[in-house]
């Protein structure tokens, strides 16, 4: 979502991506996110856009967490969070990350302490955020 909205709209997700490119923090991405980004751009803008978006997400990431590495965390989190969010949260726990930047009410509902919206994340860097949460 951050990669997608950040590319397509003027929003806080774009500020998050700019901060990442400036090296203000390290980006760790799950394999799932990389796949979803590629698929989104491929299905909506064509094969080349899919390929470029994947390379962008890969190059911006300091580390990409593979599915095989997080089996234990996935098993431990099953039933505590929706299946679609499982892999991302498992990656966050596996890497012991401070923040899970996303705009997804399901993380909030599940009281995931690492969850932070793009708007709140941008504020940590003393940037004036856009009004919208994402």
């Amino acid at each position: 979502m951050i990669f997608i909205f950040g590319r397509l709209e003027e929003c806080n997700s774009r500020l998050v991506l700019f901060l990442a490119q400036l090296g203000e923090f390290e980006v760790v991405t799950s394999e799932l996110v990389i796949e979803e980004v590629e698929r989104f751009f491929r299905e909506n803008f064509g094969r080349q856009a899919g390929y470029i978006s994947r390379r962008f997400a890969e190059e911006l990431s300091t580390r990409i967490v593979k599915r095989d590495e997080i089996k234990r965390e996935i098993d431990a989190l099953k039933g505590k969070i929706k299946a679609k969010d499982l892999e991302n949260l498992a990656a966050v726990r596996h890497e012991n990350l401070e923040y899970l930047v996303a705009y997804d009410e399901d993380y909030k509902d599940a009281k995931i302490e690492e969850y932070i919206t793009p708007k709140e994340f941008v504020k940590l860097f003393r940037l004036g955020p856009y009004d919208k949460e994402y």
Partner: protein
Amino acid sequence: MVQEKLLVRLSGTTADILNELVRRGYFATKSEAIRAGILRLGENFGLFKQSMHYWRELSEEIKRTGKQMTHSEIMEALTRLEQET
């Protein structure tokens, strides 16, 4: 956009590596492998970041398609994506 057309003669190790990169499928063509190599050099010498290159490329590719998505279209596509994953 600046364009450069070069004729580069390669032999020995450099030619072998280039052929092998394409043969193994890392790059579709030799030209593509050479372009990627130049970008890597630029990155090594601190001239730019690969991610910034892809950011610009993606903008250009989206523009080239002429397609624009509204916020609700993006949301619908994302929801569909999540359901299918």
